[in-house]
């Protein structure tokens, strides 16, 4: 089917009849070869300048070919720059622009600043409870302190926790951090962060939603691997991390709602996430003042599988985003209401504290 509008045989290099309106006629143009040199010089020099940061980012990546290749390329470059003192110069330049080169790659930005430590009367906070206790009844002068921690899912419920809890009775602190988890403490050290949060804010209730990024080997803050994902030792080691994290969160008498992971659309991940949820549930069952909320069941289709919709009686709501992992605004709102109801059931959360 000959449908073309031009005969390629008559093609000529373009010569613009009128000067373009963007001022390019007043600029010197370059031939393609020199442009390529310009691009390559630009990218190589940028890569050299940015190599320390690129290496830190690569170290934080999940294990795999991409990480291995990146580190193989960047490692020697940064080694040379370290010896020449270039890294220090670059880091100083980065600091001048407000980026602290030695902070954890996961960073602490985009989380709420925590309040100064409130006075601890010692009366309403049993330090070593033997069984579940009730959440205290808040007042306008002494509102409940609720902290939401975890990964991007926690960021979502953190936002909607602020809407669901009544501001006159509850202070919500959103500490969710995108791309984080319990596996890679070298990327983001959640136990350390949780200790800081407990010390600084002494939360009455900590809502934990974490684990979406944890299909990785367990690594210490120093970069040592303690359990390789897929090995027999991984589940027990992972559960131990969850248990230790919950212990930290309850160490000052606070309560924890551990929000389980929802089923993703990708059925290949169900087995792993199912085991994660069992680990969270088992840890919660062992510890006082820790309760596990089963998100998977709450948002499952009638056949137990994945659905993007939530049915409340006959009313249907789209609750999941296109990625098949996260919730949309309606989904987080429903989830947060379910969590608040669950906290009331488990820890007698004052029903005045949230919009029922």
């Amino acid at each position, binding site marked *: 089917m000959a449908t073309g509008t031009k005969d390629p045989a008559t093609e000529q290099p373009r010569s613009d009849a009128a000067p373009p309106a963007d001022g390019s006629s007043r*600029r010197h143009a370059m031939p393609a070869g020199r442009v390529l040199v*310009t691009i390559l010089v630009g990218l190589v*020099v940028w890569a050299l300048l940015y190599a320390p940061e690129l290496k830190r980012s690569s170290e934080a990546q999940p294990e795999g070919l991409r990480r291995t290749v990146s580190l193989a390329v960047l490692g020697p470059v940064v080694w040379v720059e370290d010896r020449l003192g270039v890294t220090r110069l670059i880091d100083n330049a980065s600091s001048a622009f407000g980026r602290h080169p030695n902070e954890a790659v996961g960073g602490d930005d985009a989380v709420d600043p925590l309040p100064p430590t409130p006075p601890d009367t010692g009366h309403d906070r049993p330090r070593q409870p033997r069984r579940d206790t009730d959440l205290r009844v808040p007042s306008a002068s002494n509102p409940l302190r609720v902290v939401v921690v975890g990964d991007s899912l926690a960021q979502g419920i953190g936002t909607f926790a602020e809407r669901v809890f009544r501001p006159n009775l509850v202070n919500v602190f959103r500490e969710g951090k995108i791309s984080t988890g319990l596996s890679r403490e070298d990327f983001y050290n959640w136990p350390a962060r949780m200790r800081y949060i407990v010390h600084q804010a002494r939360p009455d209730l900590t809502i934990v939603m974490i684990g979406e990024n944890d299909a990785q080997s367990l690594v210490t803050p120093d970069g040592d691997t303690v359990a390789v994902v897929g090995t027999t030792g991984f589940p027990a080691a992972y559960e131990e991390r969850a248990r230790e994290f919950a212990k930290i969160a309850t160490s000052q008498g606070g309560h924890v709602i551990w929000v389980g992971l929802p089923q993703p659309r990708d059925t290949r991940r169900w087995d792993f996430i199912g085991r994660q949820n069992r680990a969270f549930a088992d840890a919660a069952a062992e510890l006082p003042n820790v309760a596990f909320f089963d998100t998977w069941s709450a948002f499952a289709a009638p056949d137990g599988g994945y659905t993007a919709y939530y049915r409340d009686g006959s009313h*249907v709501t789209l609750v*999941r985003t296109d990625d098949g992992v996260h919730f949309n605004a309606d989904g987080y709102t429903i989830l947060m209401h379910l969590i608040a109801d669950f906290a009331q059931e488990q820890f007698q959360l004052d029903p005045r504290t949230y919009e029922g």
Partner: protein
Amino acid sequence: MLFPTTDFAIFFCLVFLGHWWLNHNARAWKAFMIAASYVFYGWWNWRYVFLLAGVSVITQLAAIAVSRQHQPRRRMTVMGLGVAATIAPLVYFKYYGFFTVNVTNAATSLGLHVAPPLIQVVLPVGVSFYTFMAISYVVDIYRGDFELSSWSDLFLYLSFFPHLVAGPIVRPNELIPQLDIRRDPRHIDVAGAAWLILGGLFKKVVIANYLAGAIVDPVFGDPARHSSPEAILGIVAYAVQIYCDFSGYTDIAIGVAKVLGFRFPQNFDRPYSARSVQEFWRRWHMTLSRWLRDYLYIPLGGNRRGNGRTYVNLMITMLLGGLWHGAAWHFVAWGGLHGVYLSVGHWKQGKRETGRLAEPPDTTLVHWMQRLATFTLVCIAWTLFRADSVATALTLLGRTITAWSEPSPLITIPVILAIGAGLVTQFVPHGPADRLKGAVSNLRPVPLGIAIAVVLFVITTLGPRGVAPFIYFQF
């Protein structure tokens, strides 16, 4: 594949080499560029390439059918069917969930039992953009404004990677002729391209990403907890964020095309300097505005059928424009509000033309008051656009009035500086920038490359870690 990533940098270097190496061989060049564009698109999800190819095939078959019809009524019918077939995938992917939920709940409230399959349809990136380009092609052929192109030209027109995922919405007569003219490898405006790419990166990585995290997301996330100054500044910051995000993307797209020897239409022309909402739409997402005008508003009758019909046409155009941005009622409300703005503007214009409404004084002070009023109206509409529901938007707008006594910790010097920087770009004259580009164009490749690297280092260091997707990818 996102522009501000090392993946794209490597991809682009390879494409640049292949592009200029095959420049003399039209057939091989087109095959290479189509393949490269499909790799670029498939980087998100390889399944998407089948949709892109499918839309391309449907578009070309529709165009062939239209071009073979010479009897006017049948030609129009074939064109209508062709457009319907072209737009069908977009309707399915974008509106199935919206339609299903609303129909099911409306039926339930009426006591009826309707149970459409509750499946989640994932919207592929860019489909809204290349579908509109496909419709342009079929309609332009119907109108006789453009001739039928070859299959390879059509495939490349729709898939050409610089515009593929978020525009600009390039019309057939702007791009397809460029595909058949051999590009001149001796004259590449590298200074102009670098300005666009680095400027676009700065707007996106430094300003838009910073404002999103520092004030926009918190304020829109929970309006009820923020003071009036924070609510106002949050809304203004979103106006700056979406401008820097979207115009940043199109600047990069236009710059990338320029390095390959292509010229794309301008998509933004300092929109917040507009003195009326009509002018705003001539400066904001210009390729969408003219698309809506030429393929929706004018075919509906435009302003040729009396005032009443003009208002109806404006409302239909803007409501559908809102729905194009997303399958949610707050987008419809955003479009509807702009429809009201434009209708009021049309009404005032009519009154002025007949002398029943005085022209405002032509003074600098009045011009600035008009700019401020237009910006305020646009910001009110942006609130509906950004909020996750109409109710949230109304809560936030309410907070701009009712919470003046509360503290405003989100208002910081960097936030004000970032907003200021975004707004100042609306009023900087072109002259100094052109002179700077002229000076940069005198540099030889190595110094120019080093200068680019230093600017890139500053941008990547100033921006937050990680790569945030562009706002318009979701549309």
